[in-house]
């Protein structure tokens, strides 16, 4: 499993080996449609976890950044039908995924981790120390 930790707020989208003409660049060919990936979000004592369905991308094609309390996930999906003949029947489109979330200052942005497997992205956001509930032992005299 690939782990990517990304806390660089000015992180450029990584291209998965594609040339700029094919993808990635905002100054070249306009990208195809962006899709909003469905997510689950859950919380434990020490973390928030965002799980997103993003089929057809790869760990090197996913960019995760935190800036101004916004968590932004961009996943590039390379066109994959170029070599597969002609589209005969189409029920869904192929394009990049995007999702963003506002996060409070209770997140430790330095510790964000992500893993991509089976077309599913899992991003783990550790809570800042200050908001992790601590159990205080009460001494009996």
């Amino acid at each position, binding site marked *: 499993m690939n782990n990517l930790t990304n806390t660089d707020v000015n992180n450029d989208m990584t291209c998965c080996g594609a040339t700029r003409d094919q993808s990635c660049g905002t100054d070249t060919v306009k990208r195809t449609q962006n899709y909003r990936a469905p997510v*689950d979000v859950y919380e434990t004592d020490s973390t928030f976890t965002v*799980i997103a369905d993003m089929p057809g991308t790869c760990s090197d094609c996913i960019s995760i950044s935190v800036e101004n309390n916004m968590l932004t996930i961009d996943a590039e999906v390379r066109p994959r039908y170029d070599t597969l003949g002609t589209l005969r029947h189409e029920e869904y489109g192929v394009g990049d995924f995007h999702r963003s979330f506002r996060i409070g200052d209770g997140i430790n942005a330095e510790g964000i981790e992500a893993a991509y497997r089976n077309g599913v992205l899992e991003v783990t956001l550790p809570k800042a120390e200050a908001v992790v509930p601590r159990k205080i032992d009460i001494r009996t005299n």
Partner: protein
Amino acid sequence: MNTRTILTPATTAMDSLRHEFDRLFDRVTTPGLASAWPTRLFDSMRPHPAANLLEDDDNLYFEAELPGVAPENLDVNASDHSLNVSGTRTLDIPDEATTLRRERSTVTFERTMRLPVAIEPDAIDARLEGGILTITLPKVRPARTRRIAVREA
């Protein structure tokens, strides 16, 4: 969150954090904003998954997006004019976790597609990579397209 005082109880801090998440999610899912990003993926793991079919001279290619489906939970069956894909997708969320947002689902799915030309069921190839199922279906010989050179008389 910005004006949290030192004595704010931890539970309150947690609650406001949770509210931040909720508010954000609500914003993202409001119709006006959502229209910027089509929501087709809410359809991708329904009981009858969407599929694309491509064709070249020798093969048909069936493709479906099945994020989070393990190969062992997927069945592919084919006859000469029909393809059937079925399986289950389960979610892997720890018991002790509190769910804040649920857009994905556990689903048992099945999709049957009638094929436009006869294929060779014994020669099909199925790959599941990055949540994408691609099935290569070789056409039977008579159904293959051949370019015929036209001779000048």
